């Protein structure tokens, strides 16, 4: 994929790309793969993990024990040319935000060191959530809180599972409403505007081609529309099996009977049944979803290595 094809993709040219979906569908793989593809195409990219999931390190490691792991302390770690990764640490993000809000560093320190404030931050509902979302947003801003920190062209966010992830982003609107005026209200309002603006952020849902995940993806699309007042941009159907077997092939196999070993017949039959079920769910998703549906192939491997993740990312970037 070339840099030119990326700039023509309206989705991939946005500053924030949120990757969401149910647990176990391959969200982290898609987020990591997209990050690699964007960096390869020349954009300063950071892949961002929220909620201390600790899944990125394994995907980015070139081999086990790779020292370039991603610590959960909010540090931005360089992984490759133009590619960074980070795991949001809400406490650190809160300190950074305060330092940027208050006129002097000593004032911010006074506040963060005071017990009253520490209790307040720990006890007030939603503080961790709003701070996390705000930090994700900040990574993509031209003017960073830390004036010396260079901005990223694009932030790819690996969100927690569907409902939790949307709930997390929804806190921006909630705080903007609840606080009404003051720095929190205006800050939350700016984050909300970005999250809800389809020209600045993108939402990519990852799904598997099964009845349950397809139904949940359709529900997720409705949830994004109602909670975040914006459309889902694309749905990635992951791990789609190749259509290898035709009905005629199977007939010939069955006709051969016991000459073909039982497990071989089972494998062929099972693959065919699963492929058919997948295709019918994929068709249903295409029929009922508003967002564009793209697919990624099933990779028959015990675990995905960095090369395979990069290949999937490049394939996906070409389709979005």
């Amino acid at each position, binding site marked *: 994929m070339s840099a030119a094809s990326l700039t023509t993709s309206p989705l991939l040219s946005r500053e924030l790309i949120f990757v969401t979906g*149910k647990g*176990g569908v391959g969200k982290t793989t898609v987020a990591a793969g997209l990050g690699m593809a964007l960096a390869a195409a020349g954009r300063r990219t950071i892949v961002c993990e929220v*909620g201390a999931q600790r899944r990125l390190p394994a995907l980015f490691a070139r081999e086990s024990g790779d020292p370039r792991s991603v610590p959960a302390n909010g540090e931005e770690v360089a992984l490759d040319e133009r590619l960074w990764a980070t795991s949001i640490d809400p406490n650190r993000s809160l300190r950074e935000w305060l330092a940027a809000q208050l006129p002097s560093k000593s004032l911010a320190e006074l506040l963060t060191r005071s017990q009253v404030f520490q209790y*307040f931050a720990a006890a007030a509902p939603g503080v961790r959530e709003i701070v996390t979302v705000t930090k994700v947003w900040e990574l993509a801003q031209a003017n960073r809180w830390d004036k010396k920190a260079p901005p990223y062209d694009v932030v790819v966010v690996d969100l927690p599972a569907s409902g939790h992830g949307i709930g997390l982003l929804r806190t921006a609107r909630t705080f903007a409403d609840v606080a009404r005026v003051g*720095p929190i209200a205006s800050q939350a309002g700016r984050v909300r505007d970005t999250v809800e603006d389809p020209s600045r952020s993108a939402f990519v849902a990852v799904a598997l081609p099964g009845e349950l995940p397809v139904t949940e993806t359709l529900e997720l699309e409705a949830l994004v529309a109602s909670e975040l007042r914006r459309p889902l941009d694309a749905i990635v159907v992951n791990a789609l099996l190749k259509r290898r077997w035709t009905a005629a092939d199977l007939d010939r196999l069955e006709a051969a009977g016991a000459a*073909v070993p039982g497990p071989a017949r089972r494998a*062929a039959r099972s693959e065919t049944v699963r492929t058919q*079920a997948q295709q019918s769910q994929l068709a249903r998703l295409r029929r009922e979803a508003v967002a564009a549906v793209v697919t990624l192939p099933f990779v028959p491997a015990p675990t995905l290595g960095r090369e395979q993740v990069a290949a999937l990312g490049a394939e996906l970037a070409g389709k979005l």
Partner: protein
Amino acid sequence: MSVAERLEGKSVCVVAGSGGVGKTTSSAALALGLAAAGQRVAVITIDPAKRLANALGMQELGNEPRLVAPAVFAAAGLEVKGELWAMMLDAKATFDGLIERLAPDAATRDEILGNRIYSELSGAVAGSQEFTAIARLYDLHREGDFDVLVLDTPPSRNALDFLDAPDRLTAFFQGRALKLFLTPTGFAAKVVGRGTGVVFAIMKRVTGVDLISDLSVFFRSLGGVVDGFEERAAGVKALLADPATTFLIVTSPQKEPVEEAIFFRGKLREAGMPFGGLVINRVDPGVGEPEPLDPQAIVEELSGLLGEPLAKKVSRTVADAQVLAERDAAAIARLRAELDEREPILVPLMDADVHDVAGLVAVQRHLFAPAADRERLLAEANGA
């Protein structure tokens, strides 16, 4: 040991595992098996698949268990001697109900339920679903209407949130934080009154006056329910550590869920909570095959009969399936060693999606089969 033996004498079974491993279906199948054997069982699920919910009559459910008609299972060939009840957790309703019960008077109750912070944020906060799930479990346990309660834990990537929920809540209510906010001369008073401290002045400046006064009211009114919350959190903790409670871990053979299962087992051990067994779901049926086929030999042996292109297709299909069977066999071996679990219960990957009554009955059959039969069932699934 079969699941039935593992769960003998247990009155609470918590089903844990990472998202996407089939936890909800396993929970329902587990409850179904226990009910089939004659017990009165309630399964508390968080977010069941629509078709499963419809099949079990849960779609119109509020926050109360409802009896699933035995005829539903009779049609799928399973006789249910006991009773299967099912309910879908409504986190917000559970939280509201808790406040209603614990509030000392109507004014406090209305103040909390009407508070903007409470109504906007009580559902958004991480861990609130975990907390309400066990709060509901605790209530049902205390009411004592069921022989066994099976709890499907929330789809959280980190199942630990669930174990930590009572502690976290207790820490919050016992912590100096809340006390500080609640004392007459404390934070709330200073904010609502004319606080002059530097810290309050800076905080007001950062948060804005509206937000901080809403928060103060929220904390102050919560003060009225603190004692009830503390007592409940202690009760929940005791229930989770009770000998009649057990945790069943469900995983799929994929890398991340396996790591999470190992991690969770360690945390159970640390917390002194009982581990009842491991279910490995969606295992490639080929893992039980003592002598796997040689894909290369298939091409040679079958080319004459089927023609080379078709023989090669068979060979490639078998090779792909074997990669998964090998992955699964390695995962099972790792889980056996790490969890010190000699006999994990294997449920094969089924060709059809499992989310209807027939699928549930099939999973139930694998879960409850005696050890000797389980191997045969797996071999059957592999085309024997």
